[in-house]
């Protein structure tokens, strides 16, 4: 049995509760936009894709049997629509981002740190500071290369399992890990460079 955080909303939606629809939209619209943006040429088209997705969701309500979680189902519809709307065909780890995740200038000739990580974790004890970092991450995710953005959004914001993510994006586990690694490494670097203290 799949534990589905959206099961309650789904029941309400099926009984015709429009507030449940708005709540579901509120929960996923932003992540959907982030995903759609990687497939289509403009933000406007991404908005259209998201809109179409919600219509598709309403149409598919009766046919949804709960074999996956609601969110997996939503994101599958989204990705299919986005693919149709965009021109991106086969998806693999693109050459959009290669090389080491930590700049090699930070290591000495033997591969040891010459400019070790600056400290910032301690600062997250301050709630305001932690919120500031979360805000910064939100923006930084938007700036990630599209495929990394997709994986990080689904894994780390939505909290999906790697299995679910691979299913939604139709990529291999290994691919997913590479994208996750690059995406997370970039986000860490953003936090370090803005909040780090030597």
């Amino acid at each position, binding site marked *: 049995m799949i534990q589905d955080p959206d099961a309650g909303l789904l029941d309400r939606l099926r*009984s*015709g*509760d*429009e507030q449940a*629809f*708005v709540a579901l*939209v*509120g*929960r*996923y*619209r*932003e*992540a959907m936009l982030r995903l759609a943006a990687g497939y289509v040429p403009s933000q406007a088209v991404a908005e259209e894709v998201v*809109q179409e997705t*919600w*219509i598709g969701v*309403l*149409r598919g309500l009766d046919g949804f049997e709960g074999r996956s979680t609601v969110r997996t189902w939503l994101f599958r519809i989204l990705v299919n629509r986005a693919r149709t709307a965009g021109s991106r065909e086969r998806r693999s780890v693109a050459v959009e981002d290669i090389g*080491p*995740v*930590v700049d*090699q200038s930070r*290591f000495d000739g*033997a*591969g*040891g*740190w010459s400019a*070790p*990580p600056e*400290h*910032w*974790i301690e600062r*997250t004890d301050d709630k305001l500071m*932690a919120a500031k*970092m*979360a805000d910064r*991450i*939100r923006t930084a*995710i938007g700036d990630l290369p599209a495929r990394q953005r997709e994986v*990080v959004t689904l894994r*780390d*914001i939505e*909290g999906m399992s*790697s299995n679910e993510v691979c299913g939604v994006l139709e990529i291999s*586990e290994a691919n997913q*890990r590479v994208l*996750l*690694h690059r995406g*997370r*490494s970039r*986000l*860490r670097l953003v*936090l*370090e460079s803005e909040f780090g203290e030597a």
Partner: protein
Amino acid sequence: MALRLRLRPDLVCQQAVELVTDYLEGALSRRDRRRFESHLAGCPHCTEYLAQMRMTIRITGSVTPEDLSPQMRVEFIELYRSFRAEAGGEPAPDPDA
């Protein structure tokens, strides 16, 4: 690179940072996990780096979606109502029935 790895059993920091996600995902072989962990045991900087990656994941997980603007709420309610109107014109079941 692969050759160097084989000849030198000890990981260096520059290699360790590339293994962090595989480590967290449980995707390293037992042998590589042991090498990674024994590197960490002797390297405070890489230990700090791993802790920072974990914290980055936690902070990312705390990002919540922004609330829909009032205008968007209205638009989506309209979308919902026009869908229902088109889908056979059945009114929503009366919750009090």
